[in-house]
């Protein structure tokens, strides 16, 4: 089931992973959402407890699998399973959370090996609700972590935003890729 042609979407609870996958997937993403029963409920009533799955059919033979990791840290073991081969990691961060910069550091550290072998693109969501921290602060933090990645403001519901984020991932791997 797990083809190497995949893009992993990760990030904290409520960052928009399921929505982002839905924005570019050919079919509605298969989600295993459940009623949140803990602190997660404060952020959203349903949360992904296993994983999300979407697909982009490229032609009759090839397709790209889109996997969304569960946001809760207690499902970390799932991340290792998902982050095995593939194109890269799209990290979505919710700007309204208490400390999105710490979120970013946590997820980058968790996926550091995977990122070092593939590529990373970061989308910051909910900036319309909370402007701070601005993207320059995310970029400063990234430099402190000796990391380099595209960091864009995104609305996970907007296909164009998610598409640009994934495109930045592709060009990070190969800037010579032509349209």
């Amino acid at each position, binding site marked *: 089931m797990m083809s190497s042609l995949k893009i992993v979407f990760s990030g904290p609870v409520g960052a928009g992973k399921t929505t982002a996958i839905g924005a570019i997937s050919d079919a509605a993403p298969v989600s295993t959402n459940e009623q949140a029963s803990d602190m997660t409920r404060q952020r959203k009533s349903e949360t992904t407890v296993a994983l999300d799955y979407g697909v982009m059919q490229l032609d009759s033979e090839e397709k790209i699998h889109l996997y969304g990791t569960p946001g809760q840290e207690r499902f970390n073991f799932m991340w290792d399973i998902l982050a095995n081969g593939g194109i890269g990691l799209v990290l979505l961060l919710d700007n309204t959370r208490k400390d999105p910069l710490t979120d970013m550091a946590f997820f980058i550290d968790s996926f550091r090996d995977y990122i*070092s072998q593939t590529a990373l693109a970061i989308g910051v969501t909910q900036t319309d609700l909370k402007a701070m921290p601005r993207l320059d602060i995310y*970029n400063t933090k990234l430099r402190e972590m000796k990391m380099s990645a595209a960091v864009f403001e995104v609305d996970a519901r907007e296909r164009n935003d998610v598409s640009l984020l994934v495109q930045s991932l592709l060009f990070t791997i190969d800037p010579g890729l032509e349209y």
Partner: protein
Amino acid sequence: MIFNKTVKSKNARQTLISFIGLDNRSTKAFELFFKISCHDKYAHVEKHEEASITIVDIDAYNIGKQVKEFCQSFSERQLIVLSTHQSEFEFPNSHLVRKPIKHVELSKLLDVIDKKTHKNVGAQISSDVSRNNHGKEKSEINTIKEVKEKAVKRTPAAIENKKYRDTAQAAQLIGVVDEKLFVGSHPDMDLEKPRDVLKIFYSPKNMFQGALQKGWDLAKQNRETVEVKFLEHAVYLDGVNHLAMTELSDSVLRPMCLLESKDTPTFSSIDNKTVKERLQAHGRAVRSCTIESFIWKISLWSSRGRIPDNTDIYKPVFLSEWPNLTRLQQTPHALRIAALIAHEPIALCDVIKELKIPQRYVFGFYSAVNALGIAGVSRRTVDSLFEVQQKRFMGERSVLRKLLGRLTHTVGGESSSHAVAR
């Protein structure tokens, strides 16, 4: 006697390495390399006595005497010698590694040395295996030949026969709103001809863009709102909320961007309440946007596919961070250019050759990121001790191209219109 100092870190054996001739920056780079690329298998120590391997930067100033003395004290120490050009050493047990260092090969070499020293604790290592880089290790380090081959691939001669692709399609795909207004329409200049070269430059300092950038610097520095007056038109820059406010429409701003003025622009501190009152007094719509998107737009209209004067197109330029391209007007190939420059500093003329795109796309993009203060000419010739690693993708490039096609061609059956001005 072979030194094989190791420490136990968690469950893993850790081999200690000392340095000679490495500055603080290089030391930190190596520490990071040991931690991340080598998974903490190696660690840096200050004292040579505690180390089992020593890394020497032989290109460091006046290092020869220091290394000789070191070799006398630690005659059987395994040395990794870093150099850009030297290949022969009188030091025993030395292994040459060419700069820029390749992560993977250095890691392999360390493993080979570590394995041997660990295996033969208390015994002499056969000199025919380790001396002066002969033997098996030779194939595992960066050779001059490899470097030359790589350099040849990037020379203009190697790509001169490749014609520029039709980029109009790319521009259309990314939804550029009236490309000519942002990056002009002039053809590529012959960069070998001095007269032509002059045409690629413009002087933002004497234009509205220069006034805007100076005003923004003041607003940021003093964390206040600054009124910038240029040619009797006012723009207000909020240094706290990163906003630009004006009553001027694009149809006024755009031509204003092309004018050079000898009149000095004025800058004055102003509070936001007064700004609102002034803007509302005229009964016109108040236009407010992020300062980044305002500077981006103004610099594109001003440069129209040119670069600020005094930019050296043959010197590497850096991009410290990607511009927020989901919220800015996208110039053609902006993502590709950003990815290439962000990867490692590269000269603008090489960006044009690598991506095979018109000069004006590269120049326009550079002018805009330069105006935002996130790009500039790299001051260091070699910006990194380590060679920048290419991202690995095990699949075929055609798959990436197909995916890119899917992302840019269709939105529910319609053409995509990325980054339309918001």
